[in-house]
């Protein structure tokens, strides 16, 4: 595949791994957070961890849109899905995320009409095919997926599809990053910036990280060569005492972002005063809801839902894992009460969460040589 294979070149990877090895200071331990779940996925898919020296540690950040949805919102989704006659549509990997009483897959097994879709437009199409039934789309994701939800709602309005509505759980990337940076026990040296989100918002919104918190940020692509190069760019900033936003993903990300996408988002969404994140708690202005102009397409207004906040299990220490304060195995429930088959916390939910990854990979990560 052109424009893909060259970024998966093993030879180039070896060269970059060698340069990274040369760039690290012996005895210093580096913790670099990749913000986006897409990066975490690539890191595991290609075994990138395995190519880094042991003192360069990648910490998996809060950017997996599936993992961050709190239990209470999953419960609300299931309550909607169980309404007789309603068709509930959602992305595939959301169906396995546990609420306080099971997952959407479980609800489907109990008779709810839950359908997997690949895009919000698929959900709109289902609504048009079944005009006699209410069709709800479970919208999740960062600024990456929010524009396509916005465009779908705009189209639903234009075509007058009255039986379609949206359960909006879109979130924004900057507030959780700020929350992480504000926490006093944070131990991170730099950030691999989220490439997909940045295609929409641009690189500019991350300027506050070097400016106010003196940490380097490199906005990165998703192929293995992209990620290794971004790690190298961060290490070079650190060793040269620089601290700025650099854009490794120039072939896709414009500094100013995608103005048309931002425009349609501003029309369809508005910020919630606060939104709850699994593992991180409530964060101000971090979630989106439908704007007044689109209120009639808001599933939360159309259907009564429990709306009950379900606290993260007490023993769960996902927040500390996310901040890099503890390692997965230091969590009290890791590997015992909390496993990939029966996850408790966000980090174990998705296969690319820090804990799930460690559960599957831990022993091998340790065998690497310390420089």
């Amino acid at each position, binding site marked *: *595949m052109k424009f*893909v294979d060259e970024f*998966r070149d*093993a030879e180039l*990877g*070896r060269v970059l*791994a060698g340069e990274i090895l040369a760039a690290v200071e012996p005895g210093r331990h580096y913790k670099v957070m990749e913000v*986006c*779940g*897409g990066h975490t*996925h690539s890191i*595991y*898919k*290609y*075994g*990138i*961890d*395995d*190519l880094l020296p042991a003192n360069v540690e990648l910490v998996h950040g809060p*950017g*997996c*849109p*599936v993992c961050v949805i709190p239990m209470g919102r999953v419960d609300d989704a299931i309550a909607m899905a169980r309404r007789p006659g309603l068709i509930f549509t959602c*992305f*595939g*990997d*959301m*169906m*396995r995320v546990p609420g306080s009483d099971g997952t959407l*897959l*479980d609800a*489907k*097994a*109990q008779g709810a009409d839950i359908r*997997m*879709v*690949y895009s919000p437009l*698929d959900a709109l199409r289902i609504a048009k095919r079944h005009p006699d039934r209410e069709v709800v789309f479970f919208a*999740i*994701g*960062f600024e*990456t*997926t929010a524009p396509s939800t916005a465009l779908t709602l705009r189209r639903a309005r234009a075509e007058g599809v009255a039986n379609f509505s949206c359960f909006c759980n879109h979130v924004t990337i900057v507030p959780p990053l700020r929350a992480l940076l504000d926490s006093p026990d944070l131990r991170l040296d730099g950030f691999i910036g989220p490439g*997909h989100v940045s295609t929409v918002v641009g690189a500019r919104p991350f300027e506050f990280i070097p400016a106010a918190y003196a940490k380097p940020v490199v906005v990165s692509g998703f192929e*293995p060569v992209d990620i290794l190069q971004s790690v190298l760019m961060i290490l070079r900033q650190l060793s040269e005492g620089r601290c700025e936003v650099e854009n490794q993903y120039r072939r896709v990300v414009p500094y100013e972002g995608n103005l048309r996408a931002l425009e349609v988002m501003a029309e369809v969404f508005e910020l919630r005063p606060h939104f709850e994140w699994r593992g991180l708690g409530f964060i101000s202005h971090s979630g989106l809801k439908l704007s007044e102009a689109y209120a009639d397409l808001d599933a939360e207004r159309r259907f009564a839902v429990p709306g009950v906040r379900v606290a993260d299990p007490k023993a769960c220490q996902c927040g500390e894992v996310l901040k890099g304060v503890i*390692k997965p*195995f230091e969590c009290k429930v*890791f*590997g*015992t009460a909390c*496993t*990939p*088959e029966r996850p408790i916390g966000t980090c174990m939910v998705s*296969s690319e969460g820090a804990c799930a990854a460690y*559960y*599957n*990979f*831990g022993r*091998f990560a*340790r065998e690497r040589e310390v420089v």
Partner: protein
Amino acid sequence: MTDATAAREAKVLGIIETARSKRARFRDERITMAHGAGGKATASLIEGLLVPSFANEALDALGDAGAVAADGAQLALTTDSFVVRPIRFPGGSIGELAVNGTVNDLAVAGARPVALTLSLILEEGLAAEDLRHEVDAIARAARAAGVSVVAGDTKVVERGHADAMYVCTTGLGVRDRRARLSPAALRPRDRILLSGTIGEHGTAIMLARGEFELDAAVVSDTRPLWDVVDALLAAAGPSLRCLRDATRGGVASVLNELARASGVAILARESGVAVDPAVAGAAELLGIDPLHIANEGKLVVVVAPEAADAALAALRAVPGCERATELGEIRTEPPGMVLLETAFGGRRVLDQLVGDPLPRIC
């Protein structure tokens, strides 16, 4: 790292290892689609509920077919049901799939397929034309596989109680004297072969369902495998350790089952996996690993090191298996696990999925 932290880590890793090596338990309250997907949930159903309930030597072996000895005849018996939607897809249809799936379960047990039984569960309203098409497909596939359909049954259920038609089969085969196959027979240094490109059947079905609005020329790989097994037995005979048909759950599931059954580690190399570009493209877009996608005519072969080259040459000489590859080898550490050396040069664990491969959104 302090001593206390290191001790904590060692303890936790020990707990994980114990949990992994234990027989899966069935603790779910209801059956979900995950129990049918061939991954961990399916394993919990089989190993946690079914096998303990019927415990006997033939079943405990967890092979694709059970061994039966009757009056000196060494037989193999298997059964299968087919509930595929849509019933026709590029490269095949439910009838052909039913015959091939059944004879392949016999073939990988080292048994030459001889006879089939056939049960049809038909949904009220099914077009006679569709039924005729499937009956023709069954007859043609049976002829091609060299088996006779010797008994059968039909049931009709009300509209909505079945998806067009379900096909259930039983297959009888004669165990080949050259075969010494067992999933528990794997030894360190054994080599693993793959009979061709992977991921075609599952991808063809996903695309044929039309849920993803992707168009790609992907055709199911459904085919009978006895001729392939016969060629392998001729080339490597008792040096063949184990054969598996990489259906539901894909090659990854097969490797994990074998690693656990033999208590060995498996090192697979991504460079030893051949994937058709159209399948690779669809899998990339959907965020699914071809190693987790179902096949309907691909063998995973484990063979003693001294016979590996002969077995690979024999495989490649069989029509349709020209793209057979060497996938990896058996190691000792870590027991029960499968590691994948990626084409990019890193290593990672290749796990079984919990349920169906679900497209990722990011």
